[in-house]
């Protein structure tokens, strides 16, 4: 039977998808605009249905360290927060990356810096794809632009996290978190059995087991030669992810003379900009990175030979534009348009910025 089409907020979709994907544990702390994730999980009481643990921790720092502990045992564990809360989690995220543990983090971004505002923003792009925490690590970064993708990326995020033993993050914003759209929830998967976890995660700390050496979960290695080896191994893994896991969507790009580059909610607004521009005779297309890391640099570089200009449209002061410029490497003019601190641009403002920057 076809799954029922439901109407729900992006945040609610994440919660329902987590239960259905067979997640073992969620650890969080409420913050607008993502509190519905924790609230929905609490209301659904999955501990009675699937045995999933849902816990409101005493702080964001506690929550990410509960994720660290759970991930170390091979469980599917996740946390969610919004910008200021995700800043608090950065130490833990760095530790998870350094210990090569799979987990899912969700950031429903709001305006910053500092405590900022509660309105939508995309100003945590740098934090997410360039580091955030300390050390040479990368986060597999998925940027949903619909409520459907909020649901779908829970499963995809865990799949990639476990495939590469690396943290994955869903980087959404207040618009996608708060808006309601149609969604078909993923099919129900039971949680993995203990035997399945041991088979899938031979590295997991599962208690002393006869016949194997103890599994040690740590990011600490005081011998620099060994620490360099670890880093070389991480980098080799990151190159593999860059090779295999780039995802993007093209919208009316085939004959485009100008290209908008936008992710998440900005990409939704930019679809309308493309429609409006084409109605006025401007051949505009939209390229939407779905993975922000790995960044779709090859396809953007290929378009640099075809189009007259690119506009990176972001709810920030110009962050992804740097990666677009690196990909394009000076071949074509790349400009940025954004609104700051929680203000969302309208389709008209974006079109005006395009016209102004490229003298159309």
């Amino acid at each position, binding site marked *: 039977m076809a799954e029922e089409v439901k*109407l729900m907020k992006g945040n609610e979709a994440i919660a329902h998808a987590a239960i259905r994907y067979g997640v073992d544990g969620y650890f969080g702390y409420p913050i607008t605009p993502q509190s519905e994730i924790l609230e929905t999980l609490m209301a659904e009481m999955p501990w009675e249905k699937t045995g999933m643990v849902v816990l409101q921790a005493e702080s964001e720092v506690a929550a990410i360290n509960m994720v660290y502990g759970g991930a170390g045992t091979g469980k599917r564990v996740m946390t969610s927060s919004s910008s200021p809360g995700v800043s608090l989690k950065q130490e833990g995220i760095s530790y998870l990356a350094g210990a090569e543990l799979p987990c899912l983090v969700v950031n429903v971004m709001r305006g910053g810096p500092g405590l900022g505002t509660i309105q939508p923003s995309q100003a945590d792009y740098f934090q997410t794809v360039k580091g955030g925490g300390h050390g040479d690590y990368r986060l597999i970064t998925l940027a949903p632009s619909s409520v459907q993708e909020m649901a779908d990326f829970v499963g995809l995020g865990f799949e990639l996290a476990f495939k590469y033993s690396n943290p994955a993050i869903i980087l959404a914003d207040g618009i996608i978190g708060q*808006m*309601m*759209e149609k969604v078909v929830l993923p099919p129900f998967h039971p949680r993995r059995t203990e035997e399945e976890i041991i088979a899938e995660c031979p590295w997991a700390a599962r208690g002393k087991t006869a016949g194997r050496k103890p599994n040690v979960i740590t990011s600490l290695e005081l011998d620099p030669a060994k620490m360099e080896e670890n880093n070389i191994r991480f980098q080799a893994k990151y190159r593999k992810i860059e090779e295999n896991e780039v995802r993007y969507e093209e919208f009316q790009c085939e004959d485009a003379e100008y290209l908008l580059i936008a992710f998440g909610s900005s990409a939704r*607004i*930019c679809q309308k900009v493309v429609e409006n521009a084409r109605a006025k005779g401007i051949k505009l297309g939209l390229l939407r990175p779905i993975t922000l890391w790995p960044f779709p640099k090859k396809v953007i570089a290929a378009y640099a030979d075809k189009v007259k200009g690119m506009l990176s449209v972001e709810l920030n002061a110009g962050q992804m534009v740097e990666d677009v410029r690196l990909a394009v490497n000076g071949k074509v003019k790349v400009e940025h348009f954004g609104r700051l601190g929680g203000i969302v*641009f309208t*389709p008209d403002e974006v079109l005006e910025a395009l016209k102004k920057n490229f003298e159309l």
Partner: protein
Amino acid sequence: MKQEIIIAGFGGQGVLSMGKILAYSGLMEGKEVSWMPSYGPEQRGGTANVTVILSDDRISSPVLNEYDIAIILNQPSMDKFEDKVKKGGIIIYDGYGIHTPVKRTDVKVYRVDAMDAATEMKNEKAFNMLILGGLLKIVPMVKLENVLLGLKKSLPERHHKLIPMNEAAIKKGMEIITPMQIG
């Protein structure tokens, strides 16, 4: 067919829930829908608004430049959204909350005295359904049967006993909506 609608008023008037019921009705009708609330630090008495889009095709942006229909339930919202209605679009307002009449002459204007009707019905909570009834009379974008199904979906079960009251309010709204300026 696509309807891009803004519903704006005071927090506590049922702006967001009216939008939700409209969105659920669209869902029941098999349409594409989006519901995008202003979710600022709003409170009872503050301003609240929600953008609802019902469409036969995939919806691109949930954020809009201008609207086909503006449902305006207080003066600050009139000041904010009057200019954002498309030429030939529709403004529906509640007579109780608006002191300055619509200045635009290129839009259709309707008035629903929903606050008065709700008081008469001795049910202030019927207010937003009276407005919804008015809207559906002017632009029958969803069938009444689907609105009732939408109500069922969006209300928790313990409130399903209120559906007949809501239906009565919708029908009353359809009766009392009055054209102020047409074409």
